[in-house]
């Protein structure tokens, strides 16, 4: 289980996933280089969320979902193996889910929920400092600093989305999977998150699902394009944006199909 230096990335090999008897991903192979941003693009329902959920093993929380073949390696370790420590995997590979959800507790406790579990309880001052800096980084601090102890269920969707990013960051993951993290954000908050992603890149590997082509162009190093559960296009930002071979991908990227 010791990570070796040059296998420090995520490697997906011939992955097959089905919900019940309906296949969703077939033979998906992809590699996500360390400390880079990979944008995952594709029309709705093509399996983007499913792919992310395989990588931190939250897919298995859906009873009818099954991985029917293939392997996923994170830092050289086969994470689909039954002996994998799922909880530490999920700490190491954090996910920001497509549907932002507040836990029934205060804003402060929401941010601290996973961190406290993995890193233990802290002195109040230290905890408040960490919460403040996390909320600052996701651009939520000014909006909620006076009501950290009030219930998080009254936040707006856009605020929740940023709260969920802070909650995942609090776990201090090595990889972050983001599923349409800016879908409910205004341009200003979106810019804050994009800046955050650029900062995080120094230490963290990022996979981001987005429907915003311009955003993918701005922030990603690599692009993976899925169509109907298969890889249609994969490469660097410039390769895919500039010279996609698949005509449907080209139409999608130019905004004629979406």
């Amino acid at each position, binding site marked *: 289980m010791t990570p070796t230096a040059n296998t420090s990335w995520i490697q997906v090999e011939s992955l097959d996933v089905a919900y019940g008897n309906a296949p969703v991903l077939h033979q998906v192979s992809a590699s996500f280089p360390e400390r880079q941003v990979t944008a995952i693009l594709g029309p709705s329902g093509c399996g983007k969320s499913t792919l992310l959920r395989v990588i931190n093993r939250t897919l298995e929380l859906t009873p009818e979902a099954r991985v029917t073949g293939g392997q996923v390696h994170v830092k050289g370790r086969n994470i689909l193996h039954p002996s994998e420590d799922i*909880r*530490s995997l999920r700490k190491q590979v954090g996910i920001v889910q497509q549907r932002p*959800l507040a836990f029934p*507790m205060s804003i402060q406790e929401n941010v601290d*929920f996973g961190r406290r579990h*993995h890193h233990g309880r802290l002195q109040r001052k230290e905890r408040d400092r960490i919460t403040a800096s996390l909320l600052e980084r996701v651009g939520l601090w000014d909006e909620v600093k006076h009501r950290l102890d009030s219930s998080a269920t009254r936040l707006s969707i856009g605020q929740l989305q940023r709260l969920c990013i802070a909650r995942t960051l609090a776990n201090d993951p090595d990889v972050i999977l983001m599923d349409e993290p800016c879908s409910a954000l205004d341009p200003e908050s979106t810019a804050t998150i994009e800046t955050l992603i650029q900062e995080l890149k120094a230490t963290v590997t990022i996979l981001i699902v987005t429907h915003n082509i311009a955003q993918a162009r701005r922030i990603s190093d690599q692009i993976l394009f899925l169509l109907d559960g298969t890889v249609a296009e994969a490469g660097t930002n410039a390769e895919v944006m500039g010279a996609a071979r698949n005509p449907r991908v080209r139409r999608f990227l130019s905004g004629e199909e979406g």
Partner: protein
Amino acid sequence: MVLFLLKETGLFQGLLPTRDLLQVAAPWSPLATPPSFGLGHAWVGSFLVTGISLALAVPLGIGIGIFAAEIAPPAVARILQPALELLAGIPAVVYGFFGYVTFVKWYADWSGQPTGESLLAAGVVLAIMILPFIASTSAEALRTVYQDYREAALGLGVTEGCLFRRIVLIKALPGLAAAVALGLARALGETLAVLMLSGNTAAMPEGPLSRGQPLTALLATELGETAAGSPKYRMLFSAACLLLLAVLALNMGILALKRRFFEHLHD
């Protein structure tokens, strides 16, 4: 319709309101002169029996609820569901009989007394009777909450215990409270099993192992031998009205809790 029932039952009480209801300490001795209609022993009996049954059925029922909602493998859940339905469908009189030939008999054999009826036996059997209602109501409440939060919480890598304690329990609390209230209402109004198992003795019970006469048992025993319109008759109907009020209040509480539960889910 509720008003109708209340009025009709209350009509007979309204003819001559009885103050005896408040005489908690007086004995129940309708044949004495002057007759005395203290219902204290019946309320204490009802309270003891209901308390025992809730103490047993609430933890077990909520445990079964958690099991059905989250832990049971699908195949097991498919067995559990009809098993609980079967339990809920067994008539009260059969439960009474069953309790009579098991718990009551065991206690008689063990204590050497000729018969073994006790408030405890009634409470235990009552617990089995309300168990399926508590279990299925709490399973329903827990299932919705689990569905919503399972992935969001476990995705952060916390344990299932943490998910349960810090999120599910809090979110499902109104639903669980409704399950308990439902059990309470059923236990309070249940008659046949209590009548057959409690010993039906009109004296103040000394403890869970003594015989007693919960309110419903008193009603069932005495009504048949009461002249319509007599003071005793009015007394019985006054007691019935109080029981009705208690159960209706519990029902209102259940409705309010359920509404709160679903409102909270959506905010």
